[in-house]
């Protein structure tokens, strides 16, 4: 019978990995919170779980079908009481395709977060740890303390920058590009400028509602994601250093002062 060695056991359930482009490791997360982000913007729940490829593809799908089906416009007209306009603006060729994917995304986020939490507990119990440094030809990433409110602040200025501060290059840049597209298409910067100089009715007229309604969920999620990501990095940093110190600086040859 072949037996697994102790080191194999640690390799079997690693806590995560530090690639030079993005640190990716397990953390204990709340399934309801992640499911909520999937409901706010399909794809964000998966990005919160660090399942990036699925998250990016679902994000792209959300952008495409929402724009084709005019979901945001329909939401806007429904909430302001123009129910006839809401009915007319929806594109029936696309809107029914929206429903199953939307529900799947929320369900999948909730279920997967619970699974990942189990893997987190198993990894912690097996005393596994990440290698806290990685360099490749084109990039370097390393485990160090991050200041959570600074991460939140950068994402509040421009969503994506907080993730870049947390060294997450793929999610940082993809969110940055998506944010730039949304800001440009919604024309919100012109509207803000007009609003602050007091030309309120013109400010309202330049806005594109369909694109504008992407902004609240993108803005809220990315501030939260940057903050939570920095907290998770800090927790991992402390856990890794604690394990390192206990492994190498608790020699049995140390002479106690007694």
């Amino acid at each position, binding site marked *: 019978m072949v037996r697994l060695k102790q080191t194999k056991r640690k390799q079997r359930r690693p806590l995560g990995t530090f690639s030079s482009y993005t640190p990716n490791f397990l953390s204990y997360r709340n399934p309801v919170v992640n499911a909520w982000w999937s409901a706010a913007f399909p794809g964000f729940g998966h990005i919160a779980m660090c399942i990036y490829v699925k998250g990016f593809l679902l994000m792209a799908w959300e952008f495409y079908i929402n724009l084709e089906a005019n979901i945001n416009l329909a*939401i806007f007209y429904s909430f302001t009481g123009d129910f006839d306009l809401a009915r007319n603006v929806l594109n029936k060729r696309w809107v029914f395709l929206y429903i199953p994917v939307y529900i799947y995304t929320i369900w999948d986020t909730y279920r997967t977060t619970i699974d990942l939490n189990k893997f987190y507990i198993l990894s912690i119990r097996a005393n596994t740890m990440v290698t806290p440094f990685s360099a490749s030809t084109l990039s370097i990433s390393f485990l160090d303390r991050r200041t959570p*409110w600074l991460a939140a602040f950068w994402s509040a200025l421009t969503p994506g920058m907080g993730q870049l501060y947390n060294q997450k290059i793929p999610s940082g840049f993809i969110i940055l590009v998506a944010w730039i597209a949304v800001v440009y298409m919604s024309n919100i910067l012109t509207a803000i400028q007009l609003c602050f100089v007091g030309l309120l009715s013109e400010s309202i007229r330049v806005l594109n509602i369909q694109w504008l309604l992407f*902004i609240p969920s993108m803005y809220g999620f990315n*501030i*939260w994601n940057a903050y939570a990501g920095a907290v998770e990095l800090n927790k991992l940093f402390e856990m890794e250093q604690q394990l390192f*110190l*206990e492994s190498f600086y608790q*020699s049995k040859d140390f002479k106690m*002062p007694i």
Partner: protein
Amino acid sequence: MYIVSVFNYSLHLEMAITALEQEGIDNFRMLSIPLKPLGRNSKKLEQLTHSDGITPIDLSAIFATILMLFGVIYGYILAWGPILWGLIGFFSGALLGYLYHIFYKGGSNFPGSHPKHPNADVILLVNCDPLKADSVMHLLEVHNALGIGKYENKIS
């Protein structure tokens, strides 16, 4: 001669230890005792057992997103317009989430404001020659030790 110091978890701590090793102090002459951070870890244990990982930033971000959305939508038919109402919704939602946490969850969980959060994370004992004590203490000091003390066992 024993030099006792306390540190936070930081890269400075590892740099201090390796600097001491370069000074010729072997690793069996150092003892590190990582302290269990009661504030955060007791919270983490609570999260593990009760699945209650709701922190103020979660609730704040959720409420801020929802209220910002409604602010933008109803801003179109209210006097101040979608931009200002969106901003009002964002900040009032964030405040609402934070207040909920303070009043119903009993206290803030933002880093540094937890009452049980310890100021020190690691105790480091260095057993060294009394002649080296000053250089060891200097090294610990320049690497951001939170506090340093020494103890001389006079009998041995």
